């Protein structure tokens, strides 16, 4: 099956400086394929080039080299745009329009007419939870509500592929939960969702495959678990009711101890230590288990390491990498 989104050696240079224009490479030969029907996470720290990639896909900016296709059509294709939806990062629309009018305007551009158009607008406003506010001018909307309007306009045309740039930004936990369930719903409907984020947890909950971007280059891509499995570097054991004596006994055996509150400690164990032993000892001494979690690199730590590795060139391909670039 042909990919829903195909990106080949996509590169974007910006000219920096006035006199000697040294190019700044915002995106370096990105190559990715996204299959239809999947929810694909596009991860990376701020400034990694995620938004640049999305803008290249929407042809808001032009590539220095390389190409991209959506649904088999080149990115500039106007007809293809009828089948996709896009939510920009921190979206802003026209403050003098009401939510209703904005969606109506965009629906017109998609080719909806008359009663059909009104129905679509109503459906979407309801879907994102904008009721009475639909008649308010957008200048009166909060950030969260604007985000919801943004999602509505991205889904207006029942798109096959949806591009979301930092869809959770500015949302409170309730809002984020709504967006997550929306994305899952889209997946269940068989649509392709391509979203970018710098929050690992979001990707973890939604995606099967991800790509990780750092400094404009693809650091890794593949299934989530494969990529991050190797990055576990220890365990974190949180115990309560730890008496000072028990603590003193256990301390030399562990890598680090942090007091959370009197009697409650977070103990950091290294990978080669099986946590069961220490857990058993502590439980026997009367402490209670609060939590036991593998300690992973944050995404940022992962990037730092990865970028450093990529810099020196000393890097072996990782299991689970399907399209890593050098």
């Amino acid at each position, binding site marked *: 099956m042909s990919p829903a989104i195909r990106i080949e050696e996509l590169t974007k240079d*910006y000219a920096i400086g006035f006199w000697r224009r040294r190019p700044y490479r915002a995106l370096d030969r990105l190559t990715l394929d996204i299959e239809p029907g999947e929810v694909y996470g596009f991860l990376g720290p701020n400034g990694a080039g995620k938004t640049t990639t999305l*803008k290249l896909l*929407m*042809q*808001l*900016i*032009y590539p220095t080299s390389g190409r991209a296709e959506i649904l088999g059509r080149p990115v500039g294709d*106007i*007809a293809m*745009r*009828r089948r*996709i939806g*896009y939510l*920009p990062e*921190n*979206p*802003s*629309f*026209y403050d*003098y*329009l009401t939510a209703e*009018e904005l969606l109506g*305007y*965009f629906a*017109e*551009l*998609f*080719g909806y007419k008359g009663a059909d158009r009104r129905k679509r607008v109503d459906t979407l406003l309801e879907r994102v939870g904008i009721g009475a506010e639909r008649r308010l001018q957008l200048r009166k909307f909060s950030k969260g509500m604007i985000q919801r309007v*943004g999602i509505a*306009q991205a889904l207006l045309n029942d798109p096959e592929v949806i591009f979301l740039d930092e869809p959770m930004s500015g949302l409170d936990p309730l809002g984020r939960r709504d967006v997550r369930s929306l994305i899952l719903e889209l997946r269940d409907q068989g649509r392709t969702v391509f979203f970018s984020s710098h929050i690992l947890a979001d990707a973890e909950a939604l995606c099967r495959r991800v790509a990780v971007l750092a400094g404009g280059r693809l650091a890794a891509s593949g299934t989530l678990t494969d990529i991050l499995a190797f990055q576990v570097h220890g365990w974190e054991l949180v115990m309560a009711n730890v008496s000072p004596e028990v603590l003193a006994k256990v301390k030399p055996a562990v890598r680090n101890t942090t007091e959370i509150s009197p009697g409650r400690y977070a103990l950091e164990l290294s990978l080669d230590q099986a946590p069961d032993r220490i857990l058993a000892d502590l439980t026997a001494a009367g402490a209670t288990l609060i939590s036991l979690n593998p300690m992973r690199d944050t995404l940022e730590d992962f990037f730092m390491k990865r970028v450093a590795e990529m810099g020196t060139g000393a890097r072996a391909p990782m299991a689970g990498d399907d399209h890593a670039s050098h």
Partner: protein
Amino acid sequence: MRAIRSVAVNVFRESVRDRVPYNLVLFAVLLIASSYLIGQLTAGQDVKIIKDLGLAATSVFGLFISIFIGIGLVSKEVERRSIYALLSKPVSRAQFVAGKYAGLVLTLAVNVTVMTVALYIILAYMVWTEPPTIRAGWDAPGTDPRLLKAIFLIFIELMLVTAIALFFSTFSSPILSAALTFGFYVVGHFNADLKNFDRVVDSKAAAYLARGLYHVLPDLSAFDVKTEVVHGLPVTFGYLASTAAYGVAYVTALLLLATFIFSRRDFK
């Protein structure tokens, strides 16, 4: 085509919700009304004064609308980043430029119509109240339909100025666009002087340069037939047609150029 219309209607809607055009139209109407009062002071000449003022006000306020909205047509969308969502829809950059232009022309048309109607109402009132002896002394009838010729050319001129403003708006900031557009407006009105430069300077090269500039720069003074219509002098349809055609061709060139520039821009 439908996309152009949608964009145009949105521009019109924005201009209506932006209270600026309301104020201008109101102001113009007030000005025309006050000119009626001034006219009371100069026996017999009041019709001429009101026609002069009415046409001038229509031109000036139309100019303000053209420039102040024109310069922001594209740059505002880019600056507040609403262009990201818009251009991801099935609308091409060329359609965007055309739609923006059409929307502002629509706004202008509405405003000029309002001002024209107001002017004719006042003139009709004057015709109604002035005795026939004074009316006989007028160069042209009070509610002279030939005023429409001047207004027609004023409108085409405004279309031209709008196109200039839009053109600059595709690549430069609002302030710079305003300055440049206004500059072109002023130069365009002195354009005719360039044509006869060869009679004044000795250098052939300077004369050719001046003549070249005469042709390249917008020839705005040709659109000014206010004095003729106020004095009842003839303005032929041939002149109207050829001058209007010039305006339309120039506008087309500017819009194409604007599209060219806009199509190649990166929206960082």
